[in-house]
């Protein structure tokens, strides 16, 4: 047992290349995400809801087709197929919160900031690790839910088909939506440092804020409401071109803008504070 087990050779000149980079921090954060059972369980549960809830409802439509208007348009069909998406997004929001706040009770975050003193790198690395791990899963999950539902709903002649670009958009928008909840959860986790606080703030942002804004005097409410993260999120997932609110591509930009803004505020907050 010798203490001088050297790491790889690193003369001073190459030390620059041996420090933390965004790629390395992202890898490190991915390890952290994957190695806590509670995190893996949440991710699995989210995927399960996304996969199962939609097809189950589609099956219900086939067996007892009385609930609501018949699925004549694509938008109604995709929203049945992706019925589990909102629940999945909620769970992923909690996962996002926990991926950050789980570092605080044990002060693990100090070890993290010792290894990576540039804290903005940690915030970005965590966000990238989360997106890199979750996005493929929800994308595949949404696609599978759509495909299974398509097969089921085909029996009652629904217009759900991959020939429509709207179907693809539905899968992509749902994935963006689900990942976005997680990133917003991370941002709130950094800012509030408490799992409970951040989870409630996330729910407030998504469900309570639109209700409060709706109470504003009319022109103001109409102007602000579509820009809220919750409204932009649902507008983004709309497949039919008509209807009120922002057009889906614009809504997607607003949605992503909220994520970026959240993480920027998180970075500023985390940099200013003592760890």
């Amino acid at each position, binding site marked *: *047992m010798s*203490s*001088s*087990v*050297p*790491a*790889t050779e*690193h003369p001073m000149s190459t*030390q*620059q290349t*041996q*420090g*933390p*980079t965004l790629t*390395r*921090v992202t*890898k*490190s*954060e991915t*390890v*952290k995400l994957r*190695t*806590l*059972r*509670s995190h893996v369980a949440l991710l699995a549960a989210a995927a399960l809801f996304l996969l199962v809830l939609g097809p189950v409802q589609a099956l219900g439509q086939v067996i007892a087709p009385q609930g609501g208007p018949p699925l004549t348009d694509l938008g109604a069909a995709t929203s049945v197929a992706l019925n589990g998406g909102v629940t999945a997004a909620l769970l992923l929001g909690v996962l996002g919160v926990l991926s950050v706040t*789980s*570092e605080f009770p*044990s*002060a*693990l975050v*100090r*070890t993290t*900031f*010792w*290894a*990576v*003193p*540039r804290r903005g790198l940690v915030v970005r690395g965590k966000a990238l690790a989360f997106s890199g791990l979750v996005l493929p899963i929800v994308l595949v999950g949404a696609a599978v839910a759509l495909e299974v539902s398509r097969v089921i709903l085909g029996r009652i002649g629904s217009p759900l088909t991959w020939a429509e670009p709207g179907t693809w958009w539905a899968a992509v928008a749902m994935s963006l939506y689900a990942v976005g909840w997680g990133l917003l959860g991370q941002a709130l986790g950094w800012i509030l440092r408490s799992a409970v606080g951040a989870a409630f703030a996330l729910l407030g942002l998504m469900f309570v804020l639109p209700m409060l804004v709706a109470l504003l005097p009319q022109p103001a409410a109409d102007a602000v409401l579509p820009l809220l993260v919750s409204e932009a999120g649902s507008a983004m997932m709309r497949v039919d071109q008509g209807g009120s609110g922002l057009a889906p591509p614009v809504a997607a930009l607003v949605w992503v803008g909220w994520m970026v803004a959240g993480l920027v505020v998180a970075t500023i907050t985390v940099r200013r504070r*003592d*760890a």
Partner: protein
Amino acid sequence: MIEIENLTKRFGSTVAVDDISFTVRPGLVTGFLGPNGAGKSTTMRMVLGLDRPTGGTAHVDGRSFVDLPSPARAVGAMLDAGQVHPRRAAQAHLTAIAETIGEGRVRVQQVLDLVGLTDQARRRVGTFSLGMRQRLGIAAALIGDPGIIVLDEPMNGLDPDGIIWVRSLLRRLADEGRTVFVSSHLMGEMAQTADHLVVVGRGRLVADVPTEQLLSGAASVVRVRGPEPARLARVLTDAGATVKRAGDSALHVSDLEPAQIARLTLDHRLEVHELVTERRSLEDAFLELTHDATDYRADHTTERTVTR
């Protein structure tokens, strides 16, 4: 090399670290001693860029920790053995740290072997004893093979075997030319481990001396009691002694041998009722150093306030 200059940290109205300056040199084990709450951990956090100083600087290899190109390869740190997620396996914890500096499985295995946790690598840290967590913390600190090692209370909760292990590890790291900076609130423990001692109390620097010097200074004191303590004190001080009051009629005299004291009292026709050498323990020396600078003091304070 760690250079601390006029470092100050205030939390609201509390001064946790009060204008401290000292240097931690390579090739030595430097002990950072002080009672709990003296500002040791805060100082270490500032060295690592975790807390922002209110004033002054803490430099590592000539610059602030945050500006180092590869911080974890320059300074290995363990601030608290509990800074690990309890439900994550030891190996996963170390892997996450190793990835940040582009190290992988091989390096993690090396540090696990080094601290003797190879067989426990897949266990969740929450099931570890405090001693095992200390070992894990030390393993994490050494991942980057750093030239400077900062450990906060690494011997806390260790059994005698563990203490000997940490001690010999620190010795070896210092002998390899590394800078080793270790805090403790136990004087005896540090006296056997450190080459150099930096003592703080209530946020202030109390001593910055080689361990040898502190030990010899602590070796002995002569207790002298007589009816005229004031005159006695003057005579002894004039002769070069350091004199401290120890109760109403007694003095604690250092820097003079008992024979010299006896000769002086005879020369000055001073009555002496007691003249006895008291061996002071290291703990006494430490207590004396930090006495005026301790936040939580037991009986002495009340006694003094009453007599005033």
